[in-house]
């Protein structure tokens, strides 16, 4: 019986059994504990976004960030120069020239690291 299936057939069948096993167990767990699904699904969250530090970013780097155009980038740089250091990203909210809806969109792509971090 062991020699009934060829090597490749056994590989495919093993794979199929494994898929059904893992798939069934995980879908059961995801239904039972919805928070597990949220932990696994990292791609649809902002956990994997490589954030740009507004304290060290150059004009070109800021413009590369989605929802930050040349005007917004210039405003951020002017504010940074004026203040010396940005302590929190929230400081950018409400700055003249930065619209609120735009701020909410680019918020996930930026971070304000402290001086010790840099």
């Amino acid at each position, binding site marked *: 019986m062991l020699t009934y299936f060829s090597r*490749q*057939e056994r590989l*495919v069948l093993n*794979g*199929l059994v494994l*898929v*059904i096993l*893992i*798939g*069934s167990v*995980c*879908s059961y767990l*995801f239904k039972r504990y919805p928070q597990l699904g949220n932990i*696994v*699904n*990292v*791609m*649809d969250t*902002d956990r*994997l*976004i*490589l954030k740009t530090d507004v304290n060290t970013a150059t004009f070109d780097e800021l413009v590369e960030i*989605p929802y930050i155009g040349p005007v917004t980038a210039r405003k951020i740089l002017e504010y940074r120069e004026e203040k010396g250091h940005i302590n929190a990203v929230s400081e950018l909210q409400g700055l003249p020239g930065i619209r609120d809806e735009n701020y909410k969109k680019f918020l996930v*792509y930026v971070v304000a690291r402290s001086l010790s971090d840099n």
Partner: protein
Amino acid sequence: MKIKIHRPFIVVAIPFALGVVLSGVMDSSFRMAVLFVCLLLFSSFIFKRIRLLSTVFLLGAIMSCGFLYTQARNSLASDHLSHVAKYYPRKLVLIEGVIVSDVEERSSFKGKKTMFHLQVTRLKTKWGWKEKSGKLLVNLFRESDLSYGDVIIIEGRLHQPFEFSKSDTFSYRDLLARKGIRHILSVKARGRVEVIRRGEGFVLKQLSLKAKRRFKNVLNETLSMNEAAIMRAILLGDRHDIPKHVRELFQLSGVAHVLAISGLHIGIVSFLFFMLLKMLPISRRWQYGLTVLLLLFYALLTGGRTSVVRATIMASVFISSFILERETDVFNVLSFAALVILLLNPNNLFDVGFQLSFLSVFSIIVFYPRISKLLKQLMRHHKSRGIAYLIQSISVSSAAYLGVLGLIAYYFQIITPISVFANIIIIPLIAVIVSLGMGLMIVAFTIPTAVVAFAVCIKLLLNAMVVCIFLFTKVPGAYVLIRGISVKVVILYYCGLGALILGGFFLEKRARSPDLQK
């Protein structure tokens, strides 16, 4: 007895490609070029008794053929739309044509937009409808039920492609020109679009696009938005929906190549097709033959990108060699694939995908055995399956990286040393994900209730893969951003690599020949 390997396609592909390059840099009269080809062919015939001289003339003729072929292909017909486009600046024009590509829906700053290629047949002028030719990219700023093969009348504004990129190494206008598109037709949300006839296209392409649409729906229904976007890229070749932050992670860790369908994907897909066909009560030859046909259908389905075509041709030739019971030489097959792709469109030579695809395979063929041998010698005291796998993976990964390093530094302005190690984990993961994706497609049409099992496994592995890639980007020195690498530096790098290959061949030959050693 030493067997001399005959590689005719290398000898044809290289001068032909040189001819294509020359057509891009040289400005010569078409008639003169024709005369030159005839003269070289005639000389080759005249000196047929002096084999070396005859071959030199023949190679010259092949090179000039590459030049001529490219010039002929890039020349515009007398009724080409480009000749009259300048007379309609910012004006609405009415055009009749056939949709010759897949109709794609994308999001734009104005909401949804529909994009497709239109083969122009007629243009409405002051003097009535006039026969015209040429291909347009149509941007229709609304959703529509148009599909491949529809004959339509459409009203919009003609303009040249805009240059979006600030990069010196990428031009959107050139990219479209390589596909034979010189103008864009922008149609407003309320613009006129009238379908005259349907189903004018090539039947097989219609079928493949229908299958593609159904596959897309399956992926969209079973996975989350971002997961489906990645799966659409690695299974169907649609990369435009991948979120920017995920794409960036792949680029920074040097594994962006897994997002494009290439030899790895085609290899897995052929294996799966073959395994399915093995269940049918048909002879082995038929199984091989049908695998090739299914592969060709798959290549059509994925839009026929150069990396897919290259991998499909190579896989088909290798499978056919089993049917014909003939030996194949990998260099010869690679050159054959290059020649076919250049004959389909010589401008493909200037495509980044073409250059990366061929250079990586060439580099793997040349460097893999040597790097592997070196690593085996270094690790000769550690013999286990894990170490053997590690040696094999590092050898393939570093061999491919050596080949594409110069081009990646030039085009993408980045060097990613981490990719050599990242590939060791990502390649096996992507192999399993592609297999699961193909399984999901098959199951969705046969046992829809079992879809959940496949979808959950894909979800787990995809997220695990992206987390791994994220962690790789966090390794110190994982990537180095470099600006302004010039063509001279790239040429110098490849000259060095070429010298290394030649030196290696010479040393190996010397080591093998006892006379030379003395």
